[in-house]
């Protein structure tokens, strides 16, 4: 996964970005941390919403819906959770992304 992510970063990185300036590096790191924080918050929100929905607290709670509707909503919640955790894991490899950026910095013979 790490190598895949590094390759993906290399493939999508703009050629005109090199050499990477310290400012660009700082901006990249800042963006990386911000993205990680946002996905983390989304994950916590999703977890809390799912738990609250499962508790018999509102008319739309899982236990008050027909079984088929509850399973549909539950399935949707599971898909959301799976997507979010995948997104988080892909974005939590700063080392690989950094190595890819540094590789981009090197002058090429092209």
């Amino acid at each position, binding site marked *: 996964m790490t190598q895949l992510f590094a390759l993906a970063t290399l493939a999508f990185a703009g050629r005109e970005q090199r050499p990477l300036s310290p400012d660009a590096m700082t901006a990249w790191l800042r963006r990386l941390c911000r993205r*990680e924080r946002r996905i983390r918050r989304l994950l916590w929100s999703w977890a809390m919403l799912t738990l609250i929905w499962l508790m*018999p607290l509102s008319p739309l709670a899982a*236990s008050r819906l027909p*079984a088929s509707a*509850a399973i549909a909503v*539950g399935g949707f919640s599971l898909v959301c959770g799976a997507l979010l*955790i995948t997104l*988080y894991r892909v974005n939590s*490899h700063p080392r690989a992304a950094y190595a890819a950026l540094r590789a981009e910095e090197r002058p090429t013979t092209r």
Partner: protein
Amino acid sequence: MSRMRRSLRTYVWAVIAIGAGGLAGSFAAAPPRLSTRSLTVTLLLTSLIALAYAAPLTVGAKRRVIPDTALHLLAIALLPPPLSAAAGAGGAMLGNTYLRRPAFNALFNAAQVAVSLRIAAAVYRALAPSANGDSLVLAALLPAGLALYLVSTLAVDGATAIQRGRFQLRGWLSAHAASLETHALLVAIGIALAPAVALAPWLACVAAAPALVLGWMQQARLRFETELVEIAEELADTVEPRAGQRPDHSRDVAALVDAVARRCKMSDADSRSLTLAVRVHHLHNVVRPDDLLAETGLQRGERRALRRDHPEAVAAYATAVFGLRRVAETLRFHHERFDGRGEPFGLAGKDIPLGSRIFVACEAYAALRAPGEHRPALAAPRALLIAHAGAGTLWDPDVIAALSSVVQDEAAAAGTGADRAVAGARTAAQGGGA
């Protein structure tokens, strides 16, 4: 020692025998009616309990919690007692095997789960005789949750008591205060989720998903933070020579700071965060142009302002770019003086965080030990004399005392006879101070 080991082994085998015998006995005494629903719930809960072991949650100060209690409660509420015990024991066995724990430990864990689930299910059935998988009596689940906690804790504490040779009943509650809180929360979650899972057993997956996903997220986050710290250190290493520091300066100071922090009885986590602060304390220079770093062409006032703003600038950079909040807290005060005449806040004495006090003293000592622009490097005794002279005004006397003892120990370990000189310098400084 071997007798203690033998009694522990006997105790563990006894628990395993009680767990397995109880499980087999309950199946024989009251065979549960097996339906598609009860089998589905059993299999689901077994798998989810096993998965809970793979993704433990980290709560509070790095305490790892396996959130299987909520699933145990669901098993008690939705399944006949033998099946709930089997689901719990099976899940624990699979989870322990996944974690590659020794078979002996895995068996003990599974057996104590089976025993505690069996007793908790008995409590639930005694308080709610009409309850079955379809009709729940939520109020009766609360004492069942308490029984679950008491039995499983006592089973584990028994093993610990045999290992240590004593059982402390007096401090039992305070020792378990944190785990009791977490257990109560998990019991409450289990009770709240039971009606939804009773409606559709597949919702057990949805019920377990938040805890599992958050556990995986925490594992990924730990790796993210570790890798980010590595990048920060790598960047700090590249920027150090540009900031006029000799290579490995921050590494040397970090090693000294670590030793002094341990002498000052700082926790491992605080000590790690402090050494990281030392390593990255010039990190913000990465975005500064070379002429600003070399301070060429700057007026005296500008130079002074640059130095005054340095702690805030590096703290802001560490927080904004790397999210290192604890490190930033140390960096923010690392130019303060013990007498309150430092910068930028003018804090005095113990108002300055201990980490910052250690940092500033060790950095000054390391600077004295390194060759300056117009002077050679000072020997350890001379540098310590100067450090003692500044204790109470520039630096914290307690930190300087810890620094002295660390330096003396290092000199003694080197065995060059320098330890006697260092000890002499220390005594002379203390005598002068008196």
